[in-house]
């Protein structure tokens, strides 16, 4: 497989040092490598820092290394909290932030 290098987002190369985003594992490769879908770009990710990575896992990748697994249940809880806060303010009929409206 072609090594994809720095992941691209909206056509720009991301800063390779720090701005990591979650990726989804699409296949396991030899020697602790995994193939991952990074916003539509396939790339190789080293999974040496994690145990038992499986296809379908979401990983947070930083400079080519998966540093942690994204906890999907926790992510859903946070999103549900955002939805609840949004519904609360919409339901109360409060105008949006003055500088937004």
């Amino acid at each position, binding site marked *: 497989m072609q090594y994809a290098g720095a992941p691209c987002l909206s056509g720009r190369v991301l800063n390779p*040092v720090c701005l990591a985003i979650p990726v989804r594992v699409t296949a396991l490769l030899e020697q602790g490598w995994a193939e991952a879908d990074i916003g539509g770009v396939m790339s190789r990710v080293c999974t040496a820092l994690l145990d038992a990575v499986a296809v379908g896992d979401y990983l947070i990748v930083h400079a080519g290394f998966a540093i942690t697994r994204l906890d999907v249940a926790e992510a859903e809880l946070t999103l549900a909290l*955002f939805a609840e806060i949004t519904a609360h303010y919409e339901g109360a009929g409060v105008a949006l932030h003055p500088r937004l409206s």
Partner: protein
Amino acid sequence: MRYIRGFRDGGAAAALAQRIAAAADRTREYHLMEFCGGHTHAIFRYGVQNLLPRNVRLVHGPGCPVCVLATPRLDAAIALVQRSDVTLLSYGDMLRVPASKRRSLLKARAQGADVRMVYSALETLEVAAANPGRQIIFFAIGFETTTPATAHLIMEAARLGLTNLTVYCNHVVTPAAIQSILDAPGTRQWDSVRIDGFIGPSHVSAVIGSRPYEAFASSHAKPVVIAGFEPLDVMQAVDMLVRQLNEGRAEVENQFTRGVTRDGNRTAQALMAEVFELRPVFEWRGLGLLAEGGVCIKPKYAAFDAERRFAIATGAVRENAACQCPSIIRGVKKPEDCTIFGTLCTPRNPIGSCMVSAEGVCAAYYKYGRRTLPAGGAAVRA
């Protein structure tokens, strides 16, 4: 992807802004430092500051990996690549950082030196294996996010028996830096910066966990909320910090529960402990000498330590006198306070390190900020 888009939703941002505005006490100020450059970038890119009440200020911290590298150490790397048998590899941003006398690794490459850009530290292995006759040096920089990668590189080099690969280690340690910003005598000298609480780094914390922040949160009575890198993450963290300050609490809280646990990544921590040890002191650009501010390679792996293999001299350097990066890194000054910001110093032609990386404060101001040019007075939308 749901786990990116979901954390950038405009409606939720408006609701969170309402919630923060309702919670913030109008009779007091909230000065919150985001340590990490990833947050700085998100705050500017999504205009988070403009969604907050005027008395909730975000102070930009030193957490940009290329901004804090001391110039003498970069000068040493440039000196190394003058040797005809040396190939030096590093992360992309590092190549553009200005050293003393307006040199940079990129300019050294233009003059014929073998300097290469890598995305992952492991690419160094392939280069070393393919060029047995050359000295391959990995110029390692960054916080605890890239340190495990370098540790893995050294372990792999040892396993493969590569003798031409060394690492010039410049990894820095996050809790030490936050500690030093808070500690005397530093804060007394820098008393023009006021910090009420911290937005803690997300990916550094994914590796080291939330536990290391607990000591100084209680000893200095400053709340810390570890936050993810998306705009809604930052806003929720601000909300949590405002509430802690209102209630007089100073605890470590975790907003980034989807990536950070209290213990962090134990495999990565074990790997770092195997290869690296704390330096007694390490120089940071802008912060000076920090006790236990960086790591070096353990004697056990001395064969892979560029500082042991090559004579690396680091002397005093003269910085550009007009550049305000050291004060900007500490949050004392803003880019607008710098006379060369946006005029002499631009992302295409950076003079200070803060203008180089997307995570640097000056680069973020230049790219996303609204500012007024000092000379003509014309407002410019970057």
